[in-house]
């Protein structure tokens, strides 16, 4: 049954319709002669407040509002990967084919191609008992993603009475699941799920292994776990987007959902054009084969921006349910919060801090809480993980504002970007003094088992040295370099080396953009061996000025860009050279 109402009020993306008493909260409605997509967000007796996901120019009183009777949902099935969608899951490539290079209103295109035929391979046979979440077959979705077709969570458990491999479109029935009460339920490649509801899982697990990003600053100092949450706040120009892109490129997950929420159009285009040309270090295939893009750029309708985050995370949860490790990267949650604020203002709600609605914190918490490492529903106890990383764009770079503060209360990793570092072109501009990762200790075991025993000691030493540098710098500012002891000068030298030769990482450098963990470890060890040997040399009477001017320093500086396959030999050579040069400056030995 569909409710039909009439427009009473229009104010930007908010439309109020009359005669809507029989409609449900959060139903999707079509507004006006063009059928603009909207969603009911409030009911007052006869009147429904609708947030419209498209530009409302041209809507007037008396235009028809028709409820579809269903909440805002996404289509889940093969065909999601490699696609680019807007905030309410309309495929942008198809929209372009239909409407040209500008977005036209009132066009509805199915998220999943109805014509495309997929080869379905059944993995269970007729007669098998299954419950919701069980995998009944697979479809090779892209070169790297094996799409697992699952019994939808809403189905009743029972017995498969019919199933066959073969070629199907997403709407065709691949099998029948007969419930215990005799009801026949059709199994298809596609299922739907309302975006504002988290998909179910059996059990949440504590984080135990890192999500490896190949970013030295992150993996070594502030690691994130699989299923963890992180935020990247920073003023404009500090490199938030580059950090996010790097994570999308190099994280060792099976699938990445990248949500461009209220950001620049060209950045999404960049991802769209660049990812097909980058090889995934793990699979050797191009990165687009494991990426889903959600693009709701800043000039696209503001209400759809609010929905885009949910659309993205629901798709991610669907792949998590297959037992994959998934990362959701949202750029930027501040724009999402601003969309909330705009709608809240139009609804004339009482504002909280800085005009944001009072429910900002709980909405943010709900979003991040959908991340985690879980045991999926289904009888095989498979594990899936969903990591969520959100950029925050605090006004003026001041994180005392509501969105940053609300985010920090929830997430476990904080990569604080610093404009002072960015001005010096120190990238990634993650400030080592105020960033943190609450996963560091939990992941210690994994790192010492899988990379090196002294991983934690060494990375801790790195953090400590950098902290000492900050303290020493204060003294230098007051009394000058001359006042420092030789040993303190060595500390400054080594922390400069840590900053320039280890933490700085060139996102565009061929061998530098991604650093495997063992190379990260070896590079840190090389830098610290310089410190240890340098201190020995000082003890034997060498001068710190001479040490800081050793030609081998340049080789250490270039060590990060040494190709992975030869780095061991190269580092050994640098180490030998270091020994020779230090030997030469110890007085009485030359």
């Amino acid at each position, binding site marked *: 049954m569909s409710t039909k109402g009439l427009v*009473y*009020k*229009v*104010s930007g993306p908010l439309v109020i319709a009359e005669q809507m008493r029989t409609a449900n909260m959060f139903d999707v409605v079509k507004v006006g002669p063009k059928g603009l997509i909207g969603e009911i967000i409030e009911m007052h007796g006869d009147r429904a407040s609708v947030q419209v996901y498209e530009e*409302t*120019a*041209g*809507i*007037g*009183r008396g235009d028809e509002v028709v409820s579809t009777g269903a909440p805002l949902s996404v289509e889940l099935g093969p065909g999601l990967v490699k696609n*680019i969608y807007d905030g309410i899951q309309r495929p*942008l*490539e198809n929209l*372009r084919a239909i409407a*040209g*290079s*500008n*977005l*036209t209103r009132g066009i509805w295109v199915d998220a999943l191609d109805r014509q495309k035929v997929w080869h379905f391979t059944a993995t269970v046979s007729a007669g098998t008992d299954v419950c919701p979440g069980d995998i009944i077959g697979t479809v090779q979705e892209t070169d790297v993603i094996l799409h697992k077709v699952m019994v939808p969570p809403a189905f009743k458990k029972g017995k498969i009475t019919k199933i066959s491999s073969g070629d199907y479109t997403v709407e065709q029935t691949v099998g029948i699941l007969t419930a215990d009460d005799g009801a026949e339920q059709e199994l298809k490649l596609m299922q739907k799920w309302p975006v504002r509801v988290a998909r179910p899982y059996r059990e949440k697990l504590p984080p135990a292994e890192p999500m490896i990003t190949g970013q030295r600053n992150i993996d070594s100092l502030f690691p994130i776990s699989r299923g963890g949450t992180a935020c990247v706040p920073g*003023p*404009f*120009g500090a490199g938030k987007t580059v950090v996010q892109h790097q994570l999308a490129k190099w994280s060792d997950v099976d699938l990445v959902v990248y949500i*461009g929420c*209220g950001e*620049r*159009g*060209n950045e*999404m285009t960049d991802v769209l*054009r*660049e990812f097909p040309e980058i090889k995934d270090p793990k699979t050797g295939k191009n990165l687009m084969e494991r990426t889903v893009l959600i*693009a709701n*750029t*800043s*000039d*696209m309708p503001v209400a759809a921006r609010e929905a885009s985050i949910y659309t993205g995370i629901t798709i991610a949860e669907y792949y998590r349910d297959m037992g994959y490790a998934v990362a959701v990267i949202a750029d930027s949650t501040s724009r999402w919060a*601003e969309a909330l*604020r*705009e709608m809240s*203002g139009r609804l004339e709600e009482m*504002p909280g801090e*800085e*005009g944001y609605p009072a429910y900002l914190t709980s909405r943010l918490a709900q979003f991040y809480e959908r991340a985690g490492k879980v045991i999926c529903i289904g009888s095989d106890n498979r594990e899936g993980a969903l990591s969520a990383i959100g950029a925050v*764009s605090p*006004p*003026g770079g*001041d994180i005392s504002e509501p969105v940053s503060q609300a985010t920090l209360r929830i997430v476990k990793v904080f990569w604080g970007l610093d*404009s002072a570092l960015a*001005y*010096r*072109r120190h990238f990634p501009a993650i400030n080592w003094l105020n960033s943190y990762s609450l996963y560091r200790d939990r992941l210690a075991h994994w790192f010492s088992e899988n990379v090196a025993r002294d991983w934690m000691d060494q990375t801790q030493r790195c953090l400590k040295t950098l902290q000492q540098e900050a303290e020493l710098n204060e003294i230098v*500012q007051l*009394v*000058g*370099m*001359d006042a420092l002891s030789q040993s303190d000068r060595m500390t400054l030298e080594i922390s400069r080396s840590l900053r320039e030769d280890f933490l700085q990482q060139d996102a*565009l450098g061929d061998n530098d953009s991604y650093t495997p963990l063992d190379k990260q470890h070896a590079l840190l060890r090389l830098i610290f061996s310089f410190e240890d040997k340098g201190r020995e040399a000082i003890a034997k009477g060498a001068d710190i000025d001479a040490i800081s*001017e050793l*030609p081998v*320093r340049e080789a250490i500086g*270039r060590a990060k860009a040494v190709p992975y396959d030869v780095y061991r030999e190269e580092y050994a050579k640098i180490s030998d050279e270091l020994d020779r040069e230090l030997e030469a400056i110890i007085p009485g030995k030359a």
Partner: protein
Amino acid sequence: MIREYKTIEEVAGPLMLVKRVEGVKYDELGEIVMPDGSVRRCRVLEVNGNDVLVQLFESSAGINLSESKVRFTGHGVELAVSPDMLGRVLSGMGSVIDGGARIIPEKTMDINGTPINPAARYYPSEFIQTGVSTIDGLNTLVRGQKLPIFSGSGLPHANLAAQIARQAKVLGSDSNFAVVFAAVGITFEEADFFINDFKKTGAIGRTVLFINLASDPAIERITTPRMALTAAEYLAFDLGMHVLVIITDITNYAEALREVSAARREVPGRRGYPGYMYTDVASLYERAGRKMGSDGSITMIPILSMPEDDKTHPIPDLTGYITEGQIILSREMYRKGYMPPVDVLPSLSRLKDKGIGVGKTREDHSGVMNQLFSSYARGKEAKELMVVLGESALTPIERLYAKFADAFEAEYINQGFYENRTIEQTLDLGWKLLSILPRSEMKRIKPQFVEKYWPGER
């Protein structure tokens, strides 16, 4: 049939409430017929039952509740466009004000435009040589980019913008180039400077000017940039031209926005600016770019003056989050007499990496750029230390860096508004300055390029 209503109920500031209307649509253009027969324009901001709230584009003086009539046109605010617009001067509402003949329109376009589908954009990657070292060498501009100039009151941003408009060219192509200039609430003198500069260089023939002066109605400023961008879209995407859009001053635009918001009693965001200001200015800035199915491009250089030189003020702050970088002018450089007074370290072009290098500028560009940035940053730090502790407190290498920073400012930044440097000259100058430092400090440049271009230590 167009109906006229005599039911104006309230006029307050830029807003007007009209009662008992029928069939009026959101965002529709309305016309107010004054008692003397003259017509003023307005736009529907809210439809609420039978009442509509409209926003005036012009002054409300003379509106009479019982005499004035309102009619609604059935469409949004539109601009009549034609290739003949080139060389003409239009008002902030799009009417001809240069005394010349009326422009015969080819077609009319809604000034709000429609968002470009991100899947239909081309990533901007064609290097534009502006002839300004601090831009070409360090903050490279590419076709389809939006790169604002953050200025302060009393700084010569107009000279820099005029210099870019005068010198900008794409290497190895003789292109179909046009300039759209939007003056938003600036003084007559400033507008006159631009017009004269365009005339002097002959650029006026390929320029469309939209002029809203400080004395014109503030509320008209909301449409002026949209008019200009609509003209630019027509020239770029219909006629395939490469259009450079200069909008000055965005701060005045934001203030007009605040005025309307305050009149509507909306909950203000920071400093009284409306919470939707980000979305609103994004709908301007995001109209720059390149898209499939058209050879043209829109490159945008908005100019904004930062109140109190404060980069964290909402206007520069929100702009910086949307635009692809920023060129920041520095009062310190200006006082030293270094022109154009670009503050190099916080300036940034986000799209530079795809626009430079082999086949675009020169192979060593990226390395030289990074080396110049980090060396200048280190030199400035050394100089700060020197101020506190005296020169003797510096190590020999830091003294060299300090020397480098001085030379960099005096030669690289300070080129004047009338020197047009090629990219080769800019890069070679960079090498010459870097050679103040020892060769072993060239950590940001690939060894083979140091080998090839190193001019020898000085």
